[in-house]
């Protein structure tokens, strides 16, 4: 049994078999085994060779049928290499002689061959090293149970373990079978964490070297409440966790019980709680958890994990479905926020040196008008179905807002000409998530109907901290006085202009920040569905008077740590179970 500590990013506890996935090189743990296990490992290695040979024979045959002669030759060579008796013997000898896992033996024997090939002066031979690596990966895939293309077609429940999960990978999960997520890298607001939270899957990130410790198929416990991952738990631990998991579910049920009650402070201030979603289906979860509409529909997930860009009809049907689920409740659709760590099908071949400061989000849309207009048409068409609002992300100044609105008007004119119905008065809002937008909020407020403060990006840009980089992620904090002051400015400007205001970043879902947000004047929060009951519980336990007092105190403090501690203590008094 081994216990690893990481950062808890999505609550809940799961116990299950792990499935290791990795986007690039496999990193193979040298894992010692008991001598009695050697025959098992040797058999695993044999099976992997057998499976790889079957797979390649199938591929070779398919090529024969389609006449792909040259590719067929390559498969034939790989088959020969896999059938090499000396190769197989070296693998079994290593397992037998040093009591190591099949993965370790396969990787070290093949890497040794590859290294020898790579050293050859003859380029024809040295290039064969790539073939050896290819064979190694194929064998490891069979050993580790990773058929990446099958992630969406999982047939059994697993805990996904990865070095790092890309948003694309997480978007492709079959949610019915992924019971937990654990990764070496990542932070509280990395996209894998956001997706895990929205799907209600327990997740722990920043585990550093977890992938070097676990092996595919190991039993693993993911404790998304305490930020722990337990590899190979003993019977006692499993029992404890099963009990703990039952308690946790009981707390969930208790929170669910307040679903029908309003999000109202003890002194009667009514707060609106909306949900953040990625997929239309999630709107149902939002409503089930007591959400009153969708405050942030992240549409970029329509673009991920597919070979072509979505068509207007695909956009429209996703929006229509969401609006349909929400009946007459508001649905705020954010236009695509791609670039930086999420890409479209037009993924750039030359990566930008500084993607978060590069061509992302609204900037990307303004340079890809055809794509942008397709989405706007679909949103406008959906606007007749219910209270749909459109929101532009990452607006960094008035110019961008005017440009985006101009394109929206162009699309409206096109629809007029074609006689297609839409809501002419559809509300248009922006995400306030750059310091420049926050500082010019009074100007921006004149030209839009609502603000939504995106605290994740606002914090990252204000503090110049990459939220996904574990080396500096501890510096990332919405409780920093600089961030709080900017948030206050935006709220005040929204009030002065009498436009709606919502907070939709992670800050809106973390128990310790709820009081200060209410104290700053926020009355609408948008957060991921599973966290709605907990936040509502906090709101129902406090008075606006307490919140105002706390906020005045906190705004007078100069250090992030002091503010953080103060906010956490205050929240802990209100809802001890949340910590």
């Amino acid at each position, binding site marked *: 049994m081994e216990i690893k500590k990481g950062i808890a990013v999505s609550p809940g506890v799961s116990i299950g078999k792990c499935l290791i996935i990795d986007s690039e090189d496999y990193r193979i743990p040298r894992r010692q085994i008991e001598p009695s296990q050697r025959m098992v490992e040797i058999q695993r290695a044999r099976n992997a060779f057998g499976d790889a040979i079957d797979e390649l024979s199938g591929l070779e045959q398919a090529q024969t049928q389609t006449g792909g002669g*040259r*590719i067929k*030759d*390559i498969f034939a*060579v790989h088959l*020969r*290499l896999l059938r*090499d*008796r*000396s*190769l197989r*013997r070296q693998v079994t000898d290593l397992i037998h002689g040093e009591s190591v896992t099949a993965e370790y033996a396969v990787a070290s024997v093949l890497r040794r*061959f590859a290294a*020898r*090939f790579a*050293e*050859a*002066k*003859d380029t*024809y*031979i*040295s*290039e*064969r090293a*790539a073939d050896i690596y290819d064979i190694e990966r194929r064998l490891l895939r069979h050993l580790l149970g990773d058929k990446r293309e099958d992630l969406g077609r999982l047939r059994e429940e697993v805990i996904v373990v990865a070095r790092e999960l890309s948003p694309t990978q997480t978007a492709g999960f079959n949610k019915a079978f992924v019971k937990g997520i654990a990764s070496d890298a990542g932070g509280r607001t990395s996209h894998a964490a956001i997706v895990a939270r929205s799907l209600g899957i327990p997740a722990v990130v920043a585990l550093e070297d977890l992938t070097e410790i676990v092996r595919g198929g190991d039993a693993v416990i993911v404790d998304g409440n305490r930020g722990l991952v337990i590899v190979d738990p003993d019977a006692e631990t499993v029992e404890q966790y099963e009990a703990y998991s039952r308690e946790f579910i009981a707390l969930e049920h208790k929170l669910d019980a307040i679903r029908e009650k309003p999000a109202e402070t003890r002194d009667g201030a009514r707060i609106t709680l909306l949900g953040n979603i990625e997929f239309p289906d999630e709107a149902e979860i939002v409503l089930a958890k007591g959400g009153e509409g969708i405050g942030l529909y992240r549409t970029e997930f329509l673009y991920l994990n597919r070979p072509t860009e979505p068509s207007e009809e695909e956009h429209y049907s996703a929006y229509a479905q969401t609006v349909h689920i929400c009946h007459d409740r508001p649905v705020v659709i954010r236009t695509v926020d791609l670039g930086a760590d999420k890409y479209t099908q037009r993924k750039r071949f030359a990566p930008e040196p500084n993607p978060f400061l590069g061509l992302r989000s609204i900037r990307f849309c303004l340079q890809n008008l055809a794509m942008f207009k397709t989405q706007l048409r679909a949103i406008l068409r959906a606007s007749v179905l219910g209270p749909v609002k459109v929101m532009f992300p990452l607006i960094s100044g008035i110019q961008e807002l005017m440009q985006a609105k101009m394109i929206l008007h162009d699309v409206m004119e096109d629809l007029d000409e074609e006689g297609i119905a839409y809501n002419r008065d559809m509300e248009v809002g922006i995400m306030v998530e750059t310091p420049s937008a926050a500082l010019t909020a009074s100007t921006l407020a004149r030209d839009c109907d609502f603000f939504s403060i995106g605290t994740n990006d606002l914090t990252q840009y204000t503090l110049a901290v990459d939220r996904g980089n574990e080396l500096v992620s501890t510096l990332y904090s919405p409780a920093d006085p600089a961030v709080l002051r900017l948030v206050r400015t935006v709220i005040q400007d929204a009030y002065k202009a009498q436009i709606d205001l919502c907070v939709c970043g992670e800050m809106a879902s973390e128990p310790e920040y709820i009081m200060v947000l209410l104290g700053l004047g926020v009355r609408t929060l948008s957060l991921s569905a599973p966290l709605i009951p907990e936040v509502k519980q906090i709101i129902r336990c406090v008075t606006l008077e307490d919140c105002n007092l706390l906020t005045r105190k906190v705004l007078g403090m100069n250090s992030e740590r002091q503010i953080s501690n103060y906010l956490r203590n205050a929240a802990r008094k209100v809802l001890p179970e949340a910590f």
Partner: protein
Amino acid sequence: MWAGEATLDNPVCQITVQIKSKNGLHMRPAMQFVDLANQYNCEIAIGNGSELGDAKSIMHVIGLAAGPGTTLEIHAQGPGAEEAVGALRTFIERETFDPEPPKDAK
């Protein structure tokens, strides 16, 4: 791997040959060489000056990176050793090996 030790009952057949072809012992000829070696029941080892390895292993034979002009040492021991060595010598001393599949085949 190759632990053949010459005894009176079990003599080792040993030759050195040089590659005459303008191409080395690349993938395709190496495969043919290994196929040929596998037709014999005796143990066969091949090396290029340093250590000897299994001549029936494609991995080992390619790993020799035997280019044009390379001198190879072949040892065989067991039934049909002499015959095997003769056949392998004829193969290695060919003027040209079968051509490689085209480069863009990758």
